[in-house]
């Protein structure tokens, strides 16, 4: 099976592990990630304003290309996924917004939100299946206590992202279980790490990230797993000695394909 893949800028630079293992693991599990041609940066954050058109066009182009191939569009970076999925929903729900987007982007070939947008975790859960992954695990992570960090972007806004229950999600915990490790539930798993504020206010980012890692540690976590490069950066920088790993690294390790 082939799906369209939007890697995003950070996955080509600072977060190569997230990208490389996403492709390898998917291939190993029978899904080829076909990189969208000439993709452009998603912008990192979704602008909620209804009159922000240009900032959403890169997402629309990617969605459109996936539509032309009749493939779902998968990304692994939480931020890219959030921006693309919110853009797709805005096009579906807001006809005025959709028509303005299409006026920018070849109105004769209008895009109306047809593409299915999947996060890599959803690809694993809904397309491949955690059961199947469990069967393919050669290095089960038995005995390891791993805390899932959802942050904000994977889950919210819940109505749009619709990946899981916003306040009590299970997708990453089920993923951790499928790899043979023990998930650690802690309440800050869906609280913000500080995100881009790290640029302006190191103190605020530090306060937010420390809270996440200390809460995970308090509940017995030995490592935190995330899908977002910025979360990883903030947690790593401020989280003391708590190891922060990408979901794809963990997956590759369990599947025995990590170098």
């Amino acid at each position, binding site marked *: 099976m082939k799906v369209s893949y939007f890697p995003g800028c950070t996955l080509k630079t600072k977060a190569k592990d997230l990208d490389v293992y996403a492709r390898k693991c998917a291939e190993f599990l029978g899904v080829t990630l076909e990189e969208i041609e000439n993709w452009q940066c998603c912008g990192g954050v979704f602008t909620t304003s209804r009159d922000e058109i240009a900032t959403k066009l890169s997402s629309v182009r990617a969605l459109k290309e996936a539509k032309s191939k009749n493939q779902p569009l998968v990304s692994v970076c939480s931020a890219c996924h959030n921006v693309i999925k919110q853009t797709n929903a805005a096009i579906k729900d807001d006809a005025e917004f959709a028509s303005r987007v299409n006026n920018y982007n070849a109105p004769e070939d209008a895009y109306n939100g047809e593409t299915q947008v999947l996060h890599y975790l959803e690809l694993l859960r809904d397309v491949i299946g955690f059961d199947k992954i469990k069967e393919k695990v050669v290095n089960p992570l038995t005995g390891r206590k791993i805390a899932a960090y959802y942050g904000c972007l994977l889950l919210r806004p819940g109505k749009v992202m619709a990946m899981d*229950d916003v*306040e*009590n999600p299970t997708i990453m915990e089920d993923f951790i279980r499928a790899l043979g490790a023990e998930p650690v*539930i*802690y*309440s*800050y798993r869906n*609280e913000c790490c500080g995100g881009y504020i790290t640029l302006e206010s190191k103190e605020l980012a530090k306060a937010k990230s420390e809270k996440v890692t200390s*809460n995970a540690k*308090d*509940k017995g976590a030995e490592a935190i797993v995330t899908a977002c490069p910025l979360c990883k950066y903030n947690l790593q920088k401020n989280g003391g000695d708590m190891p922060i790993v990408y979901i794809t690294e963990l997956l590759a390790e369990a599947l025995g394909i990590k170098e």
Partner: protein
Amino acid sequence: MQRIGVFVCWCGSNIAGTVDVQAVSDALGKEPGVVFSTNYQYMCSQAGQDMIKQAIKEHNLTGIVICSCSPRMHEATFRKTAAAAGINPYMVEIANIREQCSWIHKDMKEGTEKAIVLGRTAIAKVHLNTPLVPGESPVTKRALVIGGGIAGIQTALDIADAGFYVDIVEKKPTIGGKMAQLDKTFPTLDCAACILTPKMVDVAQHERIRIFSYSEVEHVSGFVGNFDVTIKKKARYVKEDVCTGCGLCTEKCPQKKVPNEFNLGMDNRRAIYIPFAQAVPKVATIDADYCTMLKTGKCGVCSKVCTAKAIDYTQKDEFIEEKYGAIVAATGFNPISMDKFDEFAYSQSKDVITSLEFERLMNAAGPTAGKLVRPSDGVHPHKIVFVQCVGSRCAACAEKGKEYCSKICCMYTAKHAMLTRDKYPDTDVTVFYIDVRTPGKQFDEFYRRAVEEYGVHYIKGMVGKVSPEGNKLIVQGSDLIANKQLKIEADLVVLAAAIEPDKSARPLATMLTASMDTNDFFTEAHPKLRPVESPTAGIFLSGACQGPKDIPETVSQAGAAAAKVIGLLSKDKLTGNPCVAHSDEMMCNGCSTCEKVCPYGAITYQDKEFRGPNRTTLIRRVAQVNEAVCQGCGCCTVACPSGAMDLKGFASKQIMAEVDAICK
């Protein structure tokens, strides 16, 4: 040709404000068949009615058209007026020029034109009206109350005390409902059990009340005064009439790990159990999901220890059929699930509990024998945070919360806070609230006492997040008055979960053909004037199944429902609705279409002998309408392919005449 009188009502300024009533009566006075037309300020008043009666006599009227409010409001009034003046009440037609005209139009010209059209339509119908005489049906002098909480108990006692037989159907093994789980009751702080259990005993001992506990209503048919009900008595594997309630079996049963629903799963019970000491009926019940004997055939301890020989592992569900004149729904409420509100960490910490769980923790018969301790470690909490409106007033999240105010939470939270401070002065109590709503006798005084005398901290604001950290719960919320975000280290967090109707209400409503609102509360026949009756005749509403209610309100409504039931059961005969379907046998082709669409089971088929040409006879299968069962909905008249089915008072040709009058 009819001699028709037209009476246009001003309804004060309700109609006359937007409709030129003089122009309407003038225009309608010129319609064919109209011999008298007038208008008056309040047609429903005594003077207005006298005006109608006098006109009937003076002008020998045979048909009446009243242009006024909705027929739901005053049709009965004007029919009585007509009957008093000697004409058949079904010769009266109402043109609704208020709800359907003056109230929805702003422009006088448009309103007046529409009122004239509506009046003309009613005149066209009256031309084809025929006098109708309603039939009568007997009344079964026995009532059914569904639900054995305080609402059902009070309704049953009041009906039985008036001399009628009542059956209570309760799905749990005992009556008592939610009130039996409560500790104290606001605003007087009486112990709930102390005031409830005597009533439960009264029910058990009442010669005219039967309790079907551990039972459910399986099927309902019939109509007001004549309901046929099937009750399923679920197998409890204990002979109810033999068990003495000694409780020995519940002590000896080796299956000890069954979550005790009476204590909301905060402790365990045995597989054979009596929910609580004052249960009525006080008999044991075997939980088939956990009983080793029923599951594997190996155990039988309860049977061995029972000296009364009451255990019967072979018991089957039993079905009882009974006739009732009236049915009361008293199915009650439940707190909503906290699964979708995990920002409050209910699933993450045992020390985040709901208010009902708090009741059990405070109750001397509860899992901690009334000692307030944290469920996680049994340690006494020194800091408790109460959060109001969890899932109530929640418009954004229909899939998890409720848009309405649950009404009871402000008061029980004040009670919990006060009782905590009273019993444990070393415990600090904070309540987060959006609004404190205390409209009830002695309610606000009670809440103020909690604040002023008991030192409960009330903070205007909502909690955004509860985070279990170490053995504490960090409660992050806003204090809108101080304009601060607070982070409080609490030992226990209590969530005032929204309440919702019991899940059994929806299927029951379908069986009863009783209407419900979008929240699954039963709808009343009129929100102000008929609050304890369902729009379906013979179905009455008691307690929280109609809307959130506290105990005093529930008891009042239960009594009101009982009064309505008594009023119904006191009658020997009920006058039916003459506007029912009838079949023209000569046109009926026996196709059964009407029988299939009839929601009330009012149509049957009969083989009948008809005279054919040349002195021959032939047998034909034709539809028959049971006029007592027919509700006059008209489904059959629309479905009938040969046009044999028609509705008295709403005949197809009358409807067509109305349509013609509108389109003219």
